[in-house]
């Protein structure tokens, strides 16, 4: 096995430092969810839930996640609030997809 050269060793250390810096930067960005982030996430979740409501196919779990997001935001915990709002949006979108699928798929179960 060839011994590592000095240059290669420095290059490896440089990459390691860069990776650590990127990780720290990403963590800082994640931790820094703001009220503005919450409002944006909540607006997207509310819009999706309204669409599910128009289809008369909302899920209780979406409502729970929306309530949890509002509660966390009211307590100043925007990181949790953003996560809950995104969860609500995902659930609402799943309920919309279900409703659209069932517009035709219901026929498969009908007794013939």
């Amino acid at each position, binding site marked *: 096995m060839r011994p590592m050269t000095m240059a290669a060793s420095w290059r490896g250390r440089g990459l390691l430092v860069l990776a650590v810096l990127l990780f720290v930067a990403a963590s800082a960005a994640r931790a820094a969810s703001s009220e503005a982030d919450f409002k944006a996430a909540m607006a997207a979740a509310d819009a999706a839930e309204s669409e599910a409501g128009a289809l*008369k*196919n*909302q*899920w*209780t*779990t*979406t*409502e729970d996640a929306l309530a949890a997001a509002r509660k966390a935001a009211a307590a100043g915990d925007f990181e949790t609030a953003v996560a809950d709002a995104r969860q609500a949006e995902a*659930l609402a979108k*799943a*309920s919309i997809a*279900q*409703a659209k699928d*069932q517009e*035709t*798929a*219901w*026929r498969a*179960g*009908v*007794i*013939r």
Partner: protein
Amino acid sequence: MKRPGSTVRTASLISVLAMLIAAAARPAIAAETIDPAADFRAFRDYFTKKFPDVPLNDFVNGPASMDADLRRQWQSIDDFPPYDFAVERGKQMFATPFANGKTYGDCFADKGIGIRQNYPYFDQTGGEVVTLELALNRCREANGERPYSYVKDEMASLTAYMAFTSRGKPFDIKIPNDPRALAAYQKGEQYFYARRGQLNFSCAGCHVQNPGNHIRTEVLAPALGLLAAMPIYRSEWNGMGTISRRFVTCNSQVRGVPLAPQDELYRDVEYYLSYMGNGLPVAGPGARP
């Protein structure tokens, strides 16, 4: 001169094209055809063949028609029916005049006695399905009274009394030859078969595909005759509940946000299911675990 293989290939091509066209056309035809009478026959056949030992009229007893142990419990409970108080209260309410001197009987045919089997019906003037619960609240409002909650208490008492006076009469739900009535019927059918809620259940998933099976500790009732014993006293509720309450609860149990009681879709699904139970006797009020 044509080569022998070319005729075969052409014929094959035509038959494949014909199959594709037929396959594409079939759902469109099915989507446009609304035939309640054919649906009724298929529905009835499905349950009578699936449960050949259950007498037809016994389907109205729900889970008790599916499970011997449950039947014995139900018979014991019926020695002292827990819905008796509701029937008595409903009778008193029915006889008590509104502030304007009129009574519930003035709003209904035959003074409201023995008419449960005709509800819901399609009102061709208003272009909508009218359930007994809706008719009762409209009666109240027309006489200057505030409407009751649709899910329990007074409404359950009134419908319990009206069902009691109709016991044994065969359901006679009519679907007039009116495109709006057929559309309401089909919307009800769609609601019944469509999956909903985070648990992705349909009404049919429990009451068509799994009647007689357990879901947790409960025995699932068959869809045939499902509404015949309404309103019901449910031990789980520790009280009476209407058809509206049953629909709201079903939706919640699959993690779906319930519609408002007496929402148009709930009335449509009641119309569809009640029509499927035509000919079965009124058995309400009932008692369920």
